């Protein structure tokens, strides 16, 4: 009996100590401001893709006790403005920089400036030599599109590429992936590979031009969603298979309605989140991969609905 009473009191005492220490520990918790400031410069904020990239970043930054300064250039062509923004950011005591450069040929200046200031640089959606990359495996994205066409088009069909800015590796890589796959692994024929600015109207004109010059075209791979939407405008009355890239609502609806045959997914939210995770790992002195790929999936009319539901805005 005495043993039980002793045991009971011991347990009671332990419980009290636990409660007390918990409350003391709780009270010791003070309000600390975010530890790191991350500068983020994106290509533009004019498409759903970039908005979802930012949303993924903001969410991950809150989790990792970081604050973000997200600034974008006017549009995807304004590299000078972008570089000015980057240099201003580098002067503003940031702990890391995430960039999606609008022009791959003008990255050296800020990469060097960051190196001098000892600020780590990460690239998102666009590969820069010697810089940690986060985003799609663009070459694989092109191959996936080619594989889809090769499966769904009759042998010997002629297929073409309408790609975004040649100054962005994302587009050139996608094109390369597509062309390589068609040439090596399929019985399809490459018609033309055209480059345009990553804009709706430009893509539409390019498509019209393509169909005029090469009426036998049976498939077009377009390397961005906004351009794909322009392309389908031009190809409405032609029996052409259209495959695009990016996960965004208007394009998904077009896939669902059959205007676009397939999209290779590129979840902006996912790349934004991954970018912040990689930066956090780097700032916490953990090893970081040189290339950090997100998952790309094939979206057709069958599963478009499912991706539409996933979209968070």
């Amino acid at each position, binding site marked *: 009996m005495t043993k039980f009473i002793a045991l009971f009191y011991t347990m009671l005492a332990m419980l009290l100590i636990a409660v007390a220490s918990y*409350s003391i520990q*709780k009270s010791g918790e003070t309000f600390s*401001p975010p530890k790191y*400031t991350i500068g983020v410069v994106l290509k533009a904020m004019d498409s759903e893709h970039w908005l979802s990239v930012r949303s993924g970043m903001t969410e991950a930054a809150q989790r990792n006790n970081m*604050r973000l300064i997200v600034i974008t250039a006017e549009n995807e062509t304004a590299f000078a403005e972008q570089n*000015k*923004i980057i240099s*201003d*950011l580098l002067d503003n005591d940031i702990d890391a920089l995430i960039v999606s450069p609008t022009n791959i040929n003008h990255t050296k200046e800020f990469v060097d400036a960051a190196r001098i200031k000892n600020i780590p640089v990460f690239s998102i959606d666009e590969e820069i030599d010697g810089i940690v990359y986060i985003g799609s495996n663009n070459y694989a994205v092109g191959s996936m599109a080619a594989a889809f066409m090769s499966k769904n088009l009759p042998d010997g069909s002629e297929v073409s590429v309408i790609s975004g800015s040649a100054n962005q590796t994302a587009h050139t890589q996608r094109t390369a992936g597509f062309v390589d796959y068609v040439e090596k692994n399929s019985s399809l024929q490459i018609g033309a590979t055209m480059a345009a600015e990553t804009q709706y109207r430009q893509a539409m004109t390019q498509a019209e031009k393509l169909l005029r010059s090469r009426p036998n075209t049976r498939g077009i791979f377009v390397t961005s969603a906004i351009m794909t939407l322009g392309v389908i405008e031009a190809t409405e009355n032609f029996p052409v298979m259209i495959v695009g890239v990016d996960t965004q609502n208007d394009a998904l609806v077009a896939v669902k309605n059959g205007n676009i045959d397939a999209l290779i997914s590129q979840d902006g939210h996912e790349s934004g989140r991954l970018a912040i995770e990689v930066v956090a790992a780097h700032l916490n002195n953990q090893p970081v991969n040189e290339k950090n790929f997100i998952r790309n999936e094939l979206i057709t009319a069958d599963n478009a609905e499912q991706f539409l539901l996933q979209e968070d805005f």
Partner: protein
Amino acid sequence: MKIIWNMRFKMFLAALFINVLGIIFAMLLFYYYATEHFYSEYAASLYERIYIGAKNADLGFQKIYRMTLDISFDAQIIDLINRGDFAQLAIRLKEYRERNFLSDDIYCYIPTKKILVRSEEYNSVQKLDDKTADTWQRIIEHQEGLRPLFIENILSPAPKNVFLYKAEVDGAQAFITTQISERGLYYTYLDDIGTADSSLIVMFDSKGNVVSQSRALDEKNLSALLDKVHQKSSELSLTFAGEEFFGTFVEMPSSRCTVLLLVNKKKIYGKITFMQILSVLGVIFILLLSTFFIYVLSAKLNEPVENLAQVMQDVGHGNFSLRAKVEGNDEIGYLATRFNNMLEHMETLIDNLANERVLKRQAELNALQYQIRPHFIYNTLNSIRFAAMIQGAKNIGELLANFIELLQVSTNREGEFGTLAEEVGTLKKYIALQEFRLMNSFAVDFELAEESLSCRVPRLILQPFVENSILHAPSPEKTFCRIVIRSELRGDELIISVKDDGKGMTPEVLKSLSSKPTDKKTHGGFSGIGVANVKERLRLYYGEAGKVICDSDGKSYTKISIVLPVEVMS
């Protein structure tokens, strides 16, 4: 009122004591935790308040920065500057200004021509004098990047405090500056953070200068505040105008300005006092409630004990027929059961005692009856004896002497006990008398253990058995019997046996001897009180320790053994 320290009251007090301790401890813990929690929650909510305001202000700054940059990269603007079409440029700047409500005005300063183009309707193109141009040039040189410059705008019609962003026009010798009115920014983003509770809002820029505030603070307080902000101290407090303030701050990431919110401590103290009162009221309420329950509980628990106590008291007054109520299977139930058993036991004991007393009195009466005659008989017998002696019949005289002595022993009530030796002496006189009566029909042998002779035995304990053997052992087939009287000590028992080799006893007689003694006198003469009387006496003297064991095969022997506890006569 006199306090009755009964079990119920003690139990009640003990439970109440533990209860009070527990409640007070729990309340203290709760109060401590709640206060801590309240402080941190309050700080968190303050932080949340300024965080949102500061974030919006920061985004405002960022938008103006971006707009200034956009203008500087705007191809049309560059063209207008290069062409010198300043009127058109002013219109263009105005368009930009209207896009962002925060921008107070936008200037384009062309240093080579000392020309200032404004986004205003009035005086939109202005040629600055040398001094103003120089000053302006020097002022705007200090702004760089994302951090706004806080200045007094010397170019506006009435000087006012503004935040300024600058961008060098790409491909033309000109600077675009955008001004944000300090009051405009304050009322847009900061004012509603603190209007609710007469708090203090201060905004510092990256260099630690106060750029915006709700109330003017003196230099001393400001420098003290700044020190704390620089130390990143999480708990800010200061005394201002005799009142204590408590606060927190947020640094904006891109403009690197810091917004500080200070709340009057009175407000928090008021809330804490309220919490204290609430805690005390809670303690009192719970105490009252629990006191009632504890009282009811202790009464309920003590009910069986009190019942038992009442029954015990009544029994103590002599009412043995009462029985305690047995409730439950606990110690109290056990106690009640045992108490009832004890009462039962006591009742039988008292009955037995009364019975024994009646029996003893009966035996004494019997003995008295035998004492009525003695003196007359002694005297008569003595006279007869002396007559016999005088007449020379010495033999008869001795017989009479034996007889008288025997009679005296049997009627003498003074000493109920004697040694075994004395008992044997008496027995020998009795045997001599019987030998005279019954001539050659028996012989008696004694086999007595030496150590047993000094043992204490009741008087005339053997005589009835010897008489029995003398009278009943001989049979027509065997007219002469031998009687052996033996004594021995076995452990702490004295065993005396009377054995004859006569006709033995029938099982019926044996049975009747073993059964409970009755008052019926079985024989006349000496054996009047008889074998049963001996057994009864033994039971009275020794209880269970005194026994008479009868043994016979019904044809060749009878053995009567008397077992007594050994008591040596001193």
